[in-house]
């Protein structure tokens, strides 16, 4: 199992966002989480990628405890994350950003991997342009490129299709599907029906803090 979450609970003061949420992700899974606004989808994704801690519950990623060092470093090296924000340095160029993050990820051939990922997303022509000069759509692609640098075992994305055109949605979908052929897993949240229909092989809904199969 790539990820196992048992009875995950998370509250913001009196608002119980997640109540006993359970999830198992295995190789080849591409899970789309849907739910109403404010139902806790982003919170759940943030817990899985390590940006938030649950109040209660047990989480195991790649058969390791994400709250222990150095186990969490092993996990972080093998997951890819794209949240609402692209989490890139606006003053640095696309190349500088990707090289910086690939160095932190410990990628040996960081230069060739940077070119490989940008070629795949068709953004190589923007490599020497600062992120703040890019359009919202290209920034999203840049953020997605960053999440793919380490060819992650689990790719966790929060509305990856936000701000992008239909051609790019096609590119993103193909990447999602190609990953499944290589036994990788995707976990994402999306409101774009066309995107999630194509990219997911399992759909779940977050309702009253619980994850339900659809």
């Amino acid at each position, binding site marked *: 199992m790539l990820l196992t979450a048992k009875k995950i609970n998370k509250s913001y003061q009196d608002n119980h966002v997640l109540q006993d949420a359970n999830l198992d992700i295995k190789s080849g899974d591409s899970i789309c989480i849907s739910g109403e606004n404010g139902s806790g989808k982003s919170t759940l994704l943030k817990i899985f*990628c*390590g*940006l938030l*801690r649950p109040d209660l519950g047990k989480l195991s990623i790649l058969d390791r405890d994400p*709250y222990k*060092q*150095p186990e969490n*470093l*092993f996990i*972080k*090296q093998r997951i890819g*994350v794209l*949240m609402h*924000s692209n*989490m*890139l*340095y*606006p*003053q*640095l160029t696309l190349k*500088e950003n990707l090289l*910086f*993050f690939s*160095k*932190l*990820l*410990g990628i040996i051939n960081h230069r060739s991997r940077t070119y490989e990922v940008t070629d795949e997303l068709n953004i190589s022509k923007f490599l020497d342009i*600062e992120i703040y000069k890019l359009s919202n759509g290209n920034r999203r692609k840049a953020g997605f490129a*960053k999440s793919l640098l380490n060819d992650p075992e689990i790719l966790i994305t929060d509305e990856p299709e936000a701000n992008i055109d239909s051609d790019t949605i096609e590119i993103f979908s193909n990447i999602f599907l190609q990953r499944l052929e290589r036994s990788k897993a995707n976990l994402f949240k999306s409101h774009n029906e066309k995107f999630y229909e194509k990219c997911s092989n399992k759909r779940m809904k977050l309702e009253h803090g619980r994850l339900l199969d659809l």
Partner: protein
Amino acid sequence: MKNWVKILLTISSKDLIIELKSKEIIVTITLFSLLVVSIFSVTSSNPSNLSAEIGAGIIWASVVFSGSIAMSKFFSHEEKDETLNAILLMPVPIELIFFSKILSLFIFLTISECLIIGAFSIFFNSNPLSIYILTVIPIFNLGFSCVGTFFGIISSKSRSNEILLTLLLVPIVIPLIMFATELTKAGLSGIHSPNFNLWLSLGILFDIIFLVVLTFLFGKIIDQ
């Protein structure tokens, strides 16, 4: 170990490249420190004959306030663009992230001190450079950057982060400011401080205590 040093330098050099491109912090601290030193200069009746006590106060007041402005700018960007979260998602020990930010701030503070000392020499016709101030600078910068990084990250979550950082930072670094002004005073007056070893021990002790305690607490706070 070699790998950790490489990561530390990667993060810090990234901060410096961003600063070289934006020049935002450098411009802010240059203007602020010039302004503070020149205000003291024009309000002083005889700037060329300033007492060592007041001179040391002017230098370190300028460093503390321009440094805290630089820190709040530095961390508010990280918060706005969620780039600190991006680093936290990387396979890098939290302590190393803390140390890399301390290193970046250490460099910014050193630049700010060079500017302040230069401006002080011009406006007050006095050279504050001495073995005393050269001893003070690395010790002060380490402690100030350590406390500043810790509270900078906490206060960056707040809307009024600039005021909050100064309010949190200044009371804690008072022993460090006392250490710095005492030794700078000795350097400016040219009279050997009888309590040199005592003040030096205080400065070093401050650095060690805060580096150990805040490194531990930083990991805990980020974890939560």
